């Protein structure tokens, strides 16, 4: 009896240590900026010739994967970057949002890839297919007119006639054709002895770029028409250009 017990403990220790030796931890951090400064929700921001603020900025990231040649190591199938609830103070904005991925196989990777939005397979499913701890269970992020998840929400106010930041604007993106993939082209070393990280900054002003100019939020404050994807296509492409990493 006793022998058997020790045997299992020994085996367990072996397993644990071997497991520790060939895996390490990795953190993906997201920060929101506006005009180079940490983005704090509800602060007045200089836009074009008028001010705006941002109250909501959140989006799904999917297929978060480390890449080494042809090899792909998936860190997570889906996560939700929620600046809306995180960035309520300058401190929180500076810290950003961490996603910690544990027990990642050690190695030197060429980079990291993730999509902004939901992969077509999951996007063909409904929120009720997921358990409540999965961000895809959020029924408020599903738009049945699109048969799609809302990939990203971006919303706030602009200065109205009353001089207050009181007029609403919002953009919701979604549908399979608007899924975009971002690549972090940077060597990432996963090492058992220290955890590594990549930090991604998202410049929100870039999201509204329209050619050399900025999109007029005042006159196009809301995207109502589920069939008119053109303005959204511009925004989802801008998501890619809004990201910088170190």
């Amino acid at each position, binding site marked *: 009896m006793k022998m058997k017990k020790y045997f299992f403990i020994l085996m367990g220790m072996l397993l644990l240590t071997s497991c520790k030796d060939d895996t390490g931890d990795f953190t993906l951090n997201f920060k929101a900026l506006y005009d180079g400064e940490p983005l704090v*929700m*509800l602060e007045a921001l200089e836009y074009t010739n008028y001010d705006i*603020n941002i*109250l*909501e900025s959140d989006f799904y990231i999917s297929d978060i994967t480390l890449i080494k040649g042809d090899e792909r190591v998936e860190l997570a199938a889906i996560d939700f970057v929620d600046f*809306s*609830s995180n960035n*309520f103070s300058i401190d929180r904005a500076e810290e950003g949002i961490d996603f910690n991925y544990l027990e990642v196989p050690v190695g030197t990777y060429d980079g990291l890839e993730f999509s902004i939005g939901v992969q077509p397979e999951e996007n063909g499913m*409904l*929120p*009720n297919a997921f*358990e*409540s701890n999965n961000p895809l*269970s*959020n*029924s*408020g*992020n*599903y*738009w*049945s*007119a699109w048969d799609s998840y809302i990939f990203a929400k971006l*919303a*706030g*106010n602009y200065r109205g006639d009353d001089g*207050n*930041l*009181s*007029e*609403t*604007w*919002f953009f919701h993106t979604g549908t399979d054709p608007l899924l975009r993939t971002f690549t972090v082209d940077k060597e990432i070393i996963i090492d058992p002895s220290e955890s590594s990280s990549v930090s991604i900054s998202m410049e929100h002003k870039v999201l509204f770029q329209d050619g050399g100019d900025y999109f007029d939020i005042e006159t196009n404050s*809301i995207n*109502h*028409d*589920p*069939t*008119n994807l053109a303005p959204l296509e511009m925004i989802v492409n801008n998501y890619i250009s809004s990201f910088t990493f170190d």
Partner: protein
Amino acid sequence: MTNGCKEEPIDNSISLTSIEYNPTEFLPDVPEEFPLLEIPEDNPLTSDGIRLGQHLFFDPILSADSTMSCASCHLPEAGFTDQLAFSTGIDGVAGERSSMSLVNSGFSFNGLFWDGRIQSLETQALLPVEDPIELHHDWQEVIPALRNLPLYQELFRKAFGISTTSEITKELAAKAIAQYERVLISGNSNFDKFLRFEYFFSEEESNGFAMFFDKDPEIIDAECFHCHSASLFTDNSFRNNGLDEVTDLAEFSDLGRGAVTGNPLDNGKFRVPTLRNITLTAPYMHDGRFQTLEEVIDHYDSGGHFAPNRDPLIYELGLTDTEKQNLLAFLHTLVDTSYLSKEYITNPFK
């Protein structure tokens, strides 16, 4: 003896082992479109557990003067609300928030109450008994009363397999109430029947449906579905839907979610309530400020009052009278009282 400090002298307890304990798992009827009903591992649903919960829910024994039960503020015929702006407890003292519908509350995953301050139905069920503005009693007195009653001796034994009355505790009572609440599932309204092709919307209802869900570019968007999302007609999030005008986030008279999280952006936000059975649950909002659904629709149509964190989806809609009628007609399709005729739902003492 070393256990002289034990609360209950052993000799007071009655053996219950002669009562049959034969638990059968209860599989509630969850409509296909609904999310998964997540049941805690340590409190599986059994027919006897639900039956005990049903008795406790309707039994005024839980209140200090035996006048009120949970059902006094959560009336089955009123969508499990009390149809008052502010609920009043046994001492006639009113609280500051309106009673909430308990229908489909087993699917809430983001905290209970208007501000989400409590995580589970099991934890919640312990509170009303001792709340001074609710049942204003004391579990220390309720439990001995329950232990003494043959009805509860049998119900607790059958539900949890306890072997003596001394094992009847408030925790078990709360578990049973939570089981009962998990089977209060309403999903057979005309809206649900429409999804199953068993009901056809009138033109008004159909237009209101398109408005509610932003379905059709030809029909004006009312944006409701973003927060009151199907199938529960809530996404369980916390939002400011423009009820109070403030210029500073600290000015809200009821901080709502903000008092729980400490995040100033959450001030004045409340949990999105379900709209199922909404015609039965007036008055509306956390403080019952609107008497009718017409008033509610006028509120949304106006874009509500300015607050820095008013949700961007709340803006002046510019609805015509016909459009308001259509939206109202759609809200009426969310009524379902058929679940009340299922087993274990209504007052067992009647």
